């Protein structure tokens, strides 16, 4: 029997989870069924015990509610000062997150995890919710102890509302609760709790006394207690499972459960999402919330369509993947998607359509049953939905959407065209009526309906249908110019005509809508592609940022800006001229938070949602590279989940491109550094060798002159002085070469280009080197007519000097050195040829490398910089330099200089 080995992937995930946990602070939750069970009391007692063991524990915030017991426990514990907030004229005391981060205790007590921070308060809180404050504390490595009531857990919110009839405004996402490292259940039997309530030991705000008293009924308390106990038990179960996975004990069920929750625009949505969350948690399954945008749904009022934005965002906040699909039939789309994603269960709501419509059109439920194989389909029953929209989250989202909602598209031109088309076609009908049957005239009207539907959509098309019918009746059906109908069979004609017209308008409009939707998607993809392509072709951070801003502002009809941190990690406004669409006045404080935490913030997020712009981190694989700030002209453009995701995709692409640029730059810098380092070492080695010899000669000869000068003969003195002079000349040349190379390397040399004659430069060099070339036969071969070249004469002279000196140095005295210039098509070819031993073995290109010497150790001095300098100078001039062994023996060093058309010289009269 082989031991069951843990799945490596699961093990890896566990290790990563534990690593992340190790850096984070720990979260300990004191969990209870209701207020008054003694959570705060237990937490403080715990803290005192810790304090007694010399643990660094600090009270961040505890709501004392004026209770003497609590106050007594607070005695002797260190407390953070409150943050004072002005809120609607009142002065509030609240938890001070920054003070806590600054104090950075080992353990911090923060009461009431579900508390909402006063968003409109002054100064503005950083986060909407206290649990976000706590997340930040945990990230900072501070362990937090806090309290939560069962009714505050997001996914249990519904159930509690169902039990008590009171819906809590303040909730904590399940994920926060689930990730708690320790949950301590504080249990008080309902009878004891009621006793305490009557004894006034439970704090109750005056204005809510009635509601709260309803809440604290014994039945409620029993139910809430059960819920709290069960939730705790689920956690214990989950912990057990994790332990078993860790120990390689085979899971009891096959992994891969995946839940799909299909929501529509109706009131059931929120209930479905919460139900989905509970199920997903119970099954330990991933879950997807899907909304299918059918042509029918596209016609809904904006208010209803906005509801699904809020729903999808709720789903995301509960940990679901929110997806919007487009298609003609919701059922078929969901079925397809579910099969693709290997969904195991689909949750849908109860059908809401009137019975008569279900007869004509299959329900989504029916389509799902028919369209899926091996997937469980759960229909969740409806309930009291009236309170469903009280959720503060939804309310908030709606407020945004309402505030920024643009005026409805002006439709009246469509209707006007409907009327016009009817009139036109009536006139046309009048023209042809003497020659055609009445039926054909009806057909002509149908054509008008089709055209209006294609051009203006459903509403105008339906209006045109009725108008056309009326006109047909009035002008063409006897008795003429009356709505009365003489023949009953025309009523059937009317009915059919109207039906056909309506069906056509519906169909045409649907097709048009779908084409629009598809077109929009395609445009988005194309835009993303366009940006990616441009970024790929762009070099440098700033140009990339500009390109990104241009694309983002275009696609999202917004102003945008990419903010980069400076060397110290502080976000800075971009320098330089702003491009069209670039956002000025982005809030650097928000951007800084995003940069530091790598999480989005601002509009449409949970952090600083009152900001006007969205701030997205540009996350590279190792660090946050910057922040993309977007100020949408129309908030909907960004708040729709798919738009938000598209924006995130854009941010992701920008980050990838920026990181690529950054990595390339780093690699280049590393290479340059390595080369510089190598260069420095070679230089030191080389210089120390090459300077030592002349220095030894100089100091030896000069000390002889100083100490024994008077005893030396005049000839001896002269010989010593001459060798000092010679060696110092050589050293001068060496130092000059090193300096020259440094200047060339540093790019400090700006070419001082002017028109020069090559023969003049050659002449000047030969004169300068007269002494050193004395030992050889120097031959000059220049054509009579050479074009002028635009060069830096001093530098070209140096190239020639180096080549000639090299030739003299490396060939035996008495041999020939030829300086030759040839004119080629668009360049001059300058050659220095010698009759020496030829090039050393090996790649001739190596000769031009820095610190290369033909023969590594020998009497021939020189740092080996001469040819490297030549190459640098020739390249600066746009030429090429190379070495070769001549067929007739000896070496040749050649370089080219480009020839440009020279300016004319006026002829002398």
């Amino acid at each position, binding site marked *: 029997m082989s031991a069951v080995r843990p799945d490596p992937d699961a093990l890896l995930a566990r290790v990563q989870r534990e690593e992340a946990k190790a850096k984070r602070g720990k979260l300990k939750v004191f969990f209870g069924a209701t207020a008054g069970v003694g959570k705060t009391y237990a937490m403080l007692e715990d803290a005192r015990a810790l304090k007694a063991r010399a643990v660094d524990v600090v009270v961040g915030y505890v709501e004392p509610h004026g209770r003497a017991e609590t106050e007594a426990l607070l005695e002797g514990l260190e407390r953070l000062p409150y943050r004072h907030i002005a809120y609607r004229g009142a002065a509030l005391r609240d938890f001070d997150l920054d003070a806590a981060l600054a104090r950075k205790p080992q353990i911090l007590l923060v009461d009431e995890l579900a508390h909402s921070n006063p968003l409109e308060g002054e100064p503005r809180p950083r986060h909407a919710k206290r649990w976000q404050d706590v997340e930040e504390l945990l990230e900072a490595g501070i362990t937090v102890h806090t309290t939560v009531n069962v009714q505050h857990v997001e996914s249990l919110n519904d159930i509690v509302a169902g039990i008590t009839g009171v819906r809590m405004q303040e909730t904590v996402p399940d994920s926060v609760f689930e990730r708690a490292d320790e949950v301590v259940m504080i249990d008080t039997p309902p009878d004891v709790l009621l006793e305490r309530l009557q004894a006034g030991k439970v704090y109750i705000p005056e204005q809510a006394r009635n509601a709260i008293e309803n809440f604290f009924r014994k039945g409620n308390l029993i139910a809430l207690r059960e819920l709290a106990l069960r939730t705790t038990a689920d956690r214990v179960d989950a912990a057990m499972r994790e332990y078993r996975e860790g120990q390689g004990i085979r899971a009891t069920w096959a992994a891969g459960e995946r839940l799909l929750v299909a929501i529509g625009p109706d009131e059931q949505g929120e209930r479905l999402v919460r139900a989905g969350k509970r199920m997903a948690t119970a099954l330990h399954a991933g879950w997807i919330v899907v909304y299918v945008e059918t042509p029918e749904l596209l016609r809904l009022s904006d208010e209803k369509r906005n509801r699904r934005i809020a729903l999808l965002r709720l789903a995301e906040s509960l940990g679901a993947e929110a997806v919007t699909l487009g298609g003609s039939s919701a059922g078929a789309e969901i079925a397809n998607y579910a099969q693709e994603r290997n969904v195991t269960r689909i949750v849908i709501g109860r059908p809401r359509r009137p019975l008569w419509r279900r007869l004509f059109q299959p329900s989504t439920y029916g389509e799902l049953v028919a369209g899926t194989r091996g997937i469980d389909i759960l229909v969740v029953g409806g309930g009291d939905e009236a309170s469903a929209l009280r959720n503060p989250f939804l309310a908030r989202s709606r407020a945004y959407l309402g505030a920024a909602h643009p005026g409805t598209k002006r439709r009246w031109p469509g209707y006007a065209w409907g009327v016009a088309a009817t009139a036109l076609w009536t006139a046309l009908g009048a023209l042809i009526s003497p020659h055609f049957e009445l039926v054909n005239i009806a057909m002509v009207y149908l054509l008008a309906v089709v055209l209006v539907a294609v051009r203006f959509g459903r509403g105008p098309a339906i209006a045109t249908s009725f108008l056309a019918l009326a006109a047909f009746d009035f002008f063409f059906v006897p008795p003429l110019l009356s709505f009365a109908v003489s023949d009953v069979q025309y009523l059937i004609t009317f009915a059919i005509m109207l039906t056909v017209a309506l069906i056509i308008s519906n169909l045409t409009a649907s097709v048009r809508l779908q084409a629009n939707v598809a077109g929009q998607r395609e445009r988005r993809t194309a835009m993303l592609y366009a940006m990616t392509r441009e970024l790929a072709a762009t070099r440098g951070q700033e140009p990339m940022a500009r390109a990104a801003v241009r694309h983002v502002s275009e696609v999202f009809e917004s102003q945008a800006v990419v903010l980069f941190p400076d060397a110290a990690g502080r976000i800075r406004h971009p320098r330089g001229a702003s491009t069209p669409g670039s956002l000025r006045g982005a809030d650097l404080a928000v951007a800084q938070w995003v940069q530091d935490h790598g999480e989005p913030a601002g509009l449409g997020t949970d952090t600083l949602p009152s900001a006007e712009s969205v701030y997205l981190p540009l996350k590279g694989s190792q660090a946050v590279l910057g922040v993309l700030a977007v100020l949408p002209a129309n908030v909907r453009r960004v708040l729709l989940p798919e738009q938000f995701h598209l924006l995130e995709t854009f941010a992701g692409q920008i980050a990838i491109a920026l990181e690529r640029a950054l990595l390339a730059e780093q690699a280049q810098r590393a290479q340059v550094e390595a080369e510089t380092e190598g260069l420095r070492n070679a230089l030191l080695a080389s210089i120390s060798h090459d300077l030592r010899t002349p220095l030894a000669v100089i100091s030896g000869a000069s000390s002889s002159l100083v100490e024994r000068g008077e005893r030396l003969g005049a000839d001896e003195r002269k010989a010593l002085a001459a060798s000092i002079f010679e060696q110092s000349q050589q050293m001068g040349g060496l130092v000059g070469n090193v300096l020259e190379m440094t200047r060339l390397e540093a790019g400090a040399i700006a070419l001082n280009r002017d028109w020069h004659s090559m023969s003049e430069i050659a002449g000047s060099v030969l004169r300068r080197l007269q002494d050193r070339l004395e030992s050889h036969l120097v031959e000059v071969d220049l054509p009579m007519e050479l074009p002028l070249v635009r060069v*830096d004469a001093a530098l070209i002279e140096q190239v020639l000097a180096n080549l000639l000196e090299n030739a003299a140095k490396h060939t035996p005295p008495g041999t020939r050195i030829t300086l030759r210039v040839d004119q080629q098509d668009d360049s001059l070819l300058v050659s220095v040829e010698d009759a020496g031993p030829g090039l050393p073995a090996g790649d001739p290109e190596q000769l031009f490398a820095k610190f290369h010497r033909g023969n590594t150790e020998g009497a021939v001095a020189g740092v080996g910089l001469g040819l490297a300098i030549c190459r640098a100078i020739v390249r600066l001039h746009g030429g090429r330099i190379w070495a070769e062994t001549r067929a007739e023996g000896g070496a040749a060093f050649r370089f080219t200089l480009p020839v440009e058309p020279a300016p004319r010289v006026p002829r002398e009269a």
Partner: protein
Amino acid sequence: MTETRGTILVVEDEPEIRRFLRTSLATEGYRVVEAGSGARGAIDAGSQKPDLAIVDLGLPDIDGVDVIRRIRAWSPMPILVLSARAQERSKVEALDAGADDYVTKPFGVGELLARVRVALRHATRPGSGKSVLKLGKVSADLEKHVVKRDGAEVHLTALEFRLLACLAKHLGMVVTHRQLLREVWGPSHVEHTHYLRIYMKQLREKLEDDPVQPRHLLTETGVGYRLVAEED
């Protein structure tokens, strides 16, 4: 004892180089006045009444070119410039500011003394004084506009002649491109260095034995030209 051949002001901040200059110049019979800074030099130029000034371009306090300008503002005394290699631009700047010639560091004593001699002679006999130049086989009578090579007359165009005359006026001393272009072609042509290249080539072909390796019409790369005639 040798009488002094003149007073020379040395404006140089390096004491070692000052000492070497002092020794070399004193040996030749010049009286040497030393100034360790540009400001000091500008003052000494007035108070010590030197016959010639040697100014280093790389001074710590004020730019050597400024020292030259200050001296030139009131005195026509010859000024020699000391400069490092690869500083053509500052050499030209100094020459255009009024310096008469330059010596590139590191330099030999012979070169320096020759320059000093030429400059002093030029100062005592302005306009070079000589109307007949001896350039090897060539003799040029600048007053009569006659140039002969091996006794046979050589025809020079008007511009060639003006170029030669301009160089002869500063015989033995460097003349910058700008100076030559302004004097020969006129102030509107100071940027047209290609004129110079073409005409210098023609002139060399007519006057030099080996136009590529001239012995009289010398190139001072990046700076200008110098006409050297046989000493008589």
